[in-house]
């Protein structure tokens, strides 16, 4: 009951935080003059003369609180304005780009988290043995690799010498045409999952082949981080009194590690994992740009350089909500792992 109570309390708190997020974003927006904000609605240079009428139509000269509620209303209606970078409404662009990023994150995050935890605890258990030295060197190498450089090297190898093995973009030409045809039902808009749902195995394979390089680029760097945190927290847990108690009870070393040490060691890793996932969802600009995967990072990087304010605002709002929700999930996982948190 304690646990359920905790979750309900956190959900109620979530609403408050989300309102706070919209207020902050609106204040950021209100710093612009009405004319500047009206220009966000202009899609063609010929419309510049209409700025006054736009201000009047959208009520940009009204008191701030009325504007805030109007803005909220528009958001709930899905009206985020026009994205000049991709020449379509922001909400449509989001619906188009979001699944690609989500796909990348869904494939990378489990690999990063599971492999990181596994290697980290392996390295801690075999402390100062060859396995430990080897993984630590790998971690340092992985962590100090710049993403753009590593991505470019992969690109050079696989596009140069093994052409067509792991191609760029999100789907090949044939698969892309088929996916957008009427035969293919887009349940989730995530290519690989839709392919499985439609029973089209070749599209699934195609999607995976397009995922391999970006996933490698993302994971190699971030596994290093998770691994190092797991290693240090595991070492800390292994030195604790309860591990000695468990050993004095006669439990095997393996049981002690799995049952007593690892669960305690996971607590800091959960925080970092949630944070990594949120960062990945918020747009992996470099990876998506290098491999020409049209995802959120790809879009927002262009929007930011071309002063596409509605797109950038959408990015800010999305990131705000994303981090709040991820934090909530992390907190719930926390409470699941550590009963001491449930009290607070």
């Amino acid at each position, binding site marked *: 009951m304690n646990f359920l109570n905790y979750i309900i309390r956190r959900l109620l708190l979530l609403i408050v935080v989300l309102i706070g997020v919209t207020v902050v974003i609106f204040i950021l927006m209100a710093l612009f003059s009405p004319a500047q904000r009206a220009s966000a609605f202009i899609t063609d240079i010929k419309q510049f003369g209409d700025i006054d009428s736009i201000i009047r139509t959208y009520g940009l000269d009204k008191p701030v609180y009325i504007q805030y509620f109007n803005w909220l209303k528009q958001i709930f209606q899905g009206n985020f304005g026009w994205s000049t970078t991709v020449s379509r409404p922001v909400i449509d662009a989001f619906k188009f780009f979001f699944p690609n990023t989500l796909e990348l994150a869904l494939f990378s995050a489990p690999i990063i988290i599971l492999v990181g935890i596994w290697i980290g605890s392996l390295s801690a258990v075999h402390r100062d043995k060859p396995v430990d030295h080897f993984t630590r060197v790998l971690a340092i190498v992985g962590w100090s690799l710049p993403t753009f450089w590593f991505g470019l090297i992969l690109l050079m190898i696989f596009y140069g010498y093994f052409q067509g093995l792991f191609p760029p973009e999100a789907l090949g030409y044939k698969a892309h045409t088929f996916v957008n045809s009427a035969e293919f039902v887009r349940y989730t808009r995530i290519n690989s999952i839709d392919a499985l749902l439609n029973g089209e195995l070749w599209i699934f394979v195609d999607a995976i082949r397009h995922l391999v390089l970006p996933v490698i680029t993302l994971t190699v760097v971030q596994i290093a981080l998770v691994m190092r945190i797991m290693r240090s927290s595991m070492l800390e847990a292994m030195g604790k*009194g*309860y591990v000695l*108690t468990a050993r*004095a*009870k*006669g439990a095997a070393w393996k049981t002690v590690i799995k049952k007593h040490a690892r*669960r*305690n060691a996971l607590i800091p890793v959960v925080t970092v994992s949630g944070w990594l996932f949120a960062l990945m969802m918020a747009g992996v600009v470099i990876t998506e740009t290098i491999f020409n995967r049209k995802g959120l990072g790809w879009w927002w990087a262009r929007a930011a350089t071309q002063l596409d304010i509605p797109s950038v605002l959408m990015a800010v709002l999305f990131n705000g909500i994303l981090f709040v929700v991820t934090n909530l999930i992390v907190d719930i996982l926390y409470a699941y792992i550590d*009963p*001491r948190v449930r009290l607070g």
Partner: protein
Amino acid sequence: MGELILDISELKTNFYTYEGVVKAIDEISFSLEKGDTLGIVGETGCGKSVTVLSLLQLILPPGKIESGRIVYKANGKRINLLEQSEPFMRNVRGNEISMIFQEASSALNPVLNINTQVSESFLLHRQKELCESVLENLSERVDKSKRFSRLFLRCLNYRYKKKLRKAENNLLKHGHYGRLIKKDAKRLTIDLLASLGIPNPSEVIKRYPHELSGGMQQRVVISMALACNPNILIADEPTSNLDVTIQAQILDLIEKLKGEYKTSILFITHDLGVIAEIASKVIVLYAGALVEFAPVRELFKNPLHPYTKALLNSVPKLERRERLESIRGNVPNLVDPPAGCRFHPRCPGVMDICRSSKPEQIINRTHGGQVHSVACFLYRNTKAWYEN
């Protein structure tokens, strides 16, 4: 003199740290009689805990047990624990020799509930008995019903035996069986906690360590050690973090359990008052070396080693109003302990020989015929024994 249950001779443990080799305990010999309570006294860092951890072979690298013999006698057999394999030791730990740790709050795992932690002992060492009792319960239930259930039982019995033969430790993982065994272990846990005077044990086992008070936590730690009714109980400062009333309760509890279970106890503490209360014999450690062994009353009445004397003098007494004495100098660094007697730099009666050679244990008997030994050159001439 009673039967010896534990005989430790020349036990030596080193820690290989970056600063050098820490000679944590240096050839300590002592023995424990069956049903007796032996106190181990000494300052922090004198090797009390290392001694008992070496005994159970719980020393982890960089620590290493260098040499010695730990003869454990039970069921008519004499076993040198240092020669045994790790699986054998796992069966000894918690089952025949178990340990209570100093800080209950850190000795309990914060993320597991009390039931999981206490019943773990049963699940590790009483698995066969648990399986049998579960099977018995099942057969009782089946006997009353139809013939077809008897067939079911026979199948179950067959499966059970096969699994027992296959792997004793894996039986728990077999779904239905595992659940029944765990349920049985839970029942045992509730009984155990009730026998330790924990109110409302069936509620307490659902809680987590942080939801219990310090005294309760200590009781839970004790219950984990007593779960399998050990022959030897090692108590490593079990009362050091508790306030005095709780301390008295815990000591009473240990005393009571000793009478009930006929357990031999090794009681480690730096608190001389507690030792006087609970132990019948005492060994005094200084900087990893054993300096004196005596029956408890003899030690307080007639301490021989200069260190023991100094230690007893540094305890405040109500009838003595003068300034409390302290031992001059500092505890030596065990990476490079003093040659000869390890106490000689601080000893008021130091002689030349103390600086060069290591004193042997000099054994004598008190008027009551009990053994009293001391490692000090002052007593080479045993006539000097009672003249001090």
